[in-house]
């Protein structure tokens, strides 16, 4: 592995991304933060610089503008050691299932954008000879549920993309890590009433991410491992009657 301790964080305004930024910065990583309306990151950027005395660069990026991706990667101050994507939008299932445009937005934001961008970065890493790709997906992608299958199917696509890429790059020096959190206490889930015992904090996710940053595997966040095994094992003829 290289010694250019830099991590690119895509979707840097998300709460998980901010926690990841703090964790990696506290371990001496320089940060490249990419987001839409990136000026909203100003306070977070000064905070990270003052706290950890590291370099932070900020990039404007719209995950739906695929045509800008190559230019975006070229414009980075260096090709980072690690690239992490925390982009995601939950949407609203009951509204979205009646709207092509809403559904498309959720699908493209959670699946197409992140997959295409990480795919391109992985190519660059492979050409360079090293690097680590990390994608924050979701346990919602493990099985379609009545209450969030548009989001879930997009996350499922993303998880599958990552898994395929991991296998393709297995012989190379590029690792591909997928993190599948369950409920996390963030802006995205604030309107939901989450069960306390099953809800983790963004900081929990960032610690796991840091620990496994060079691993090539799929990681479900602890307490969800068993739950998802059970959910997967429920026969379809019973599962289709569930509403959760």
């Amino acid at each position, binding site marked *: 592995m290289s010694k250019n301790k830099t991590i690119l964080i895509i979707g840097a305004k998300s*709460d998980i991304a901010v926690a990841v930024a703090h964790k990696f910065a506290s371990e001496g990583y320089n940060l490249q933060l990419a987001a839409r309306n990136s000026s*909203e990151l100003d*306070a*977070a950027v*000064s*905070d990270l610089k*003052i*706290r950890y005395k590291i370099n932070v660069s900020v990039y404007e990026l719209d995950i739906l503008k695929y045509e800008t991706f190559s230019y975006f990667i070229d414009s980075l101050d260096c090709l980072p050691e690690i690239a992490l994507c925390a982009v995601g939008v939950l949407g609203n299932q009951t509204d979205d299932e009646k709207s092509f445009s809403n559904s498309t937005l959720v699908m493209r934001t959670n699946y197409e954008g992140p997959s295409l961008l990480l795919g391109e970065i992985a190519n660059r890493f492979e050409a360079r000879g090293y690097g680590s790709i990390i994608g924050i997906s979701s346990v919602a992608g493990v099985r379609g549920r009545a209450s969030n299958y548009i989001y879930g199917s997009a996350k499922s696509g993303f998880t599958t993309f990552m898994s395929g890429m991991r296998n393709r790059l297995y012989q190379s020096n590029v690792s591909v890590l997928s993190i599948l959190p369950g409920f996390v206490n963030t*802006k995205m889930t604030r309107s939901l009433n989450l069960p306390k015992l099953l809800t983790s904090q963004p900081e929990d996710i960032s610690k796991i991410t840091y620990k496994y940053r060079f691993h090539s595997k799929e990681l479900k966040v602890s307490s969800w491992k068993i739950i998802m095994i059970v959910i997967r094992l429920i026969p379809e003829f019973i599962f289709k009657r569930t509403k959760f």
Partner: protein
Amino acid sequence: MNELSGWGRYPKIKTKELTPQSESELLEILRHSESYIPRGNGRSYGDSAINKDLTITMTRMNRLLQWNQESGELVAESGVLIADIIDIFLPRGWFPYVTPGTKFVTLGGAIACDVHGKNHHKDGSFGNFVNWIEIFNNKNEVVRCSSDENSELFHWTIGGMGMTGVIIRCSIQLKKIESGWIKQQTVVNNNLNETLQSFYEHKEATYSVAWIDCLAKGKSFGRSILMLGEHAQKSEVEAKPSNYPKRKNKIITFPFDAPSFLLNNFTVSAFNRLYFNLNKNKQSSYVDWDSYFYPLDSIGDWNRMYGKNGFFQFQCVLPRELSEQGYTKILATIQNKSSGTFLAVLKDFGSGNGHLSFPKEGLTLALDFKASQKNIEVGKELTDIVNSLGGSFYLAKDAIINSSQFTNNFDKDEFLKHRNVAIKSEQSIRIEL
């Protein structure tokens, strides 16, 4: 709905709690709310940071915005904790000028309560080291105030218990220090008169605070241990493993509410005796900053010690010339009513700062009481004694006084000009602030 309380866990009140993460989110909340109170880290003791309708917790607005390593000026959002400031800036040679007895307070809370520390007689309170404050005023516009700009608003905001507007960010001045060690010296005082005299004799010390054995009777009535402190020079602590020691791990966390019979007259007076005897032979030593300033922070959730009904604090200041008379009366009342208190702390104050600030020239006493009906009655009796002597009360600690007992001296008409009427706490309603 969430049940919230102050650090004393009394009273407990159901409220809606929101935790904005940015100025724009905060503004959105304010625009849609008619009655609310901002809250920091919940370390004031009573109900000063709870509003039944909406409590806006500011701890997620906790970013550092500007830092000047040469001058020690820090600009930060109001939810930043003093603990964070020490973790980050102590290794760079800077420390808060003024700190209360816990490091887990936010900057916004420290300003709103105009907190004081063991150096008040020398340096004054927290507000003395605030360069400027930005708040949302009653039109929900961002206004900056300082001693030069909107100075009246500034002086009503410092110590103003949040009533002038939600504090968004501020600029504060840190203190240059050479090490994270404090040279501590203890002085044993055998009675109340010696205790008061001893503050006067050691007024040149940077830090001073006395722990007073409020259950000792007869010729030991009012005996105390005065603890003095100075920041150690680098050369004094060269033998220590680190010039800037890190924050201590918690020794223990209270895992559950202590059974309420644990604190009774017998155990409390035994504790007081033991504490006095343990400390009276200590003379001079070097203590790390965390143990010196924040001894109770090392016991997680120590507020559970008082059982599930919680406790309240009582802190007043009496004019210097009436201190001996007043504190004789107060200690005698506690002894007669058998409401022993673990932590009785006496401290010398210099002059005050904000218009509503608590500290003023004189001596201040802080007491803990288990929240029982009997103790609340004792607290009210003490309140009357303080009022009869022209003293005043620390609102950050109060949970029990009523509007007729709240006689802190300030110009109410002037205050109303700067008060944001949407902001109310259970306390401000209770005392009609």
